[in-house]
């Protein structure tokens, strides 16, 4: 039996960043044979050529259906492959689906042997979506900042205020109207455009 560190693991993910994050995790855990497939052309032929023990694929990837062909008897199948998630482990299935990852393993490979691989995938996928979420937040905050600065400029010019006074006025209005400062700022910009 191969030591676990020698299991051949294929990652099928159209997001190169997420695939890299997952690959790093697997390598840190001691796996030496990790292969990423990003291009979807001839996917099945490439998987057969690599002949992996474990395949990890993101759930937003329509190519999952391509991999399902491995289950049907066919002359090109080298080794039958079974899906890891089954009814015996509902918590795992739920966690995997929530994270957006699915796994296939070679038939006969004990599930316990790849449990940590799936857990790692779930963790890394979740970490990736958190990163994405934070990036989105940062972008939004940056966007808000720009709008607020523009509105501040308008107030300073029209009402002859200092920068601090302009900001204080917007903040007060926002609090009175139970709105975000960025929303108030946007209204100021819109109004200024209309009054041009």
């Amino acid at each position, binding site marked *: 039996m191969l030591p676990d560190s020698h299991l051949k693991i294929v990652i099928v993910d159209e997001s190169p960043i997420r695939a890299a994050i997952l690959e790093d995790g697997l390598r840190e855990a001691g796996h030496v044979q990790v292969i990423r497939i990003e291009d*979807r*052309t*001839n996917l*099945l032929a490439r998987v057969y050529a690599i002949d992996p023990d474990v395949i990890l694929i993101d*759930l*937003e*990837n*329509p*190519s*999952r*259906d*391509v*991999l*399902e*062909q491995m*289950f*049907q*008897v*066919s*002359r090109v199948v080298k080794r039958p492959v079974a*899906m890891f*998630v*089954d*009814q015996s482990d*509902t918590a795992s*299935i*739920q966690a995997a*689906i929530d994270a957006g990852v*699915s796994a296939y393993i070679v038939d006969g490979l004990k599930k316990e042997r790849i449990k940590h691989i799936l857990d790692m995938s779930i963790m890394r996928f979740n970490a990736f979506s958190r990163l994405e979420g934070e990036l989105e937040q940062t972008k939004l905050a940056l966007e808000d900042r720009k709008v607020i600065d523009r509105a501040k400029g308008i107030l300073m010019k029209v009402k002859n205020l200092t920068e601090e006074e302009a900001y204080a006025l917007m903040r007060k209005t926002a609090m009175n109207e139970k709105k975000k400062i960025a929303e108030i700022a946007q209204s100021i910009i819109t109004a200024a455009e209309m009054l041009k």
Partner: protein
Amino acid sequence: MTDGKNKLRIGFIPLADAAALIIAVDKGFTKEEGLDIELVREVSWSNMRDKLNIGLFDAAHLLAPIAIASSLGLGHVRVPIVAPFNLGLNGNAITVTNDLYKALADHAHGDLADPKVSARSLADVVAERRRKGREPLNFGMTFPFSTHNYQLRFWMASGGVDPDQDLRMVVLPPPYMVESISSGHVDAFCVGAPWNSVAVDLGIAHILHFVSEILQRATEKVLAVRASWAKENPDTLRRLIRAHGNAADFIEDVKNREETCAILSAPNRIDVAAEVIRRTLDGKLKVSPDGTYRTSERYLMVGRIGAARPDPVQAAWLYAQMVRWGHAPLSNEFLAISKAVFRTDLYDAVLGKGSPLPASEPADGVGAFVGPAFDPNDIRAHLSLWKIRRW
């Protein structure tokens, strides 16, 4: 009226044959039944199957063969599924590259629009490629357990082409079909609307056949729920079936065609031009880049002529194909389980039996272009007919 579960999550794949489901929700037929439905667009049939199986979806727009395979536990865990409403009959087409179309035309003895002629012509093309030492042809289909897979196989094998030996059958997600044919990755595919039309419009392919020319009545997608869910939510299911019946009637009324297509074409639904969806529902398709159209009364039948009523004969035919190609073992028990997936009783209890089918409909309920009538009680006889088989 509104006892039981009212909030449902239902998965769909952006295809024209999700019409009854999408219209049931977006036109308010489910709301009339007191149902609050969230439609979730899915990217793969594998996801759909898994999410339905583990309960993340209450119901799903599902390939009929997946409902059967899941109930039989083929390749995966066994989860009994029931189909109380048929989302439509037919609707697929076989599309080939311009090059393959020309080769088929060159080898045709007779009218290529006749599937008997085209299948024999394909056998000649395959033989010629082999003589010349060329790579086997690649045929794309949507899923291993798909109507597309079995329809392609049934057609080509009739002409002497062995789908497992003479060419390669490759699974391709529908949104990748067109790029695969344009890159030369596949030579042909069988898929539902709108993808055949998209390829023809790009000038890169011909529609060779409507599947309705191969099988007059072929169940395509079903509204699927877990058998356990159906048992636990009988009232909700009745309301869901009624909403679908109303939606199918709405779609089939030509007066509503424009509104139907506008709803279906929305970015969060099928997301293609309303005009392309219209061709599917009208059964009038551009089949050649030169602008030739072909029309059929049977292209995609959503509710007319009993199309929405689940028919166990259809389940038996699909199961027989699984056995023929070595995808399922042959047993009376499996045949019975397959037939029981299609719940005519649940449909009839809400929508009634409907009027008897006109005499023009095939007597065996399938109407295949070759072979004797299909007997759903004698799968063995059906299988013994064919030389090319894995059984």
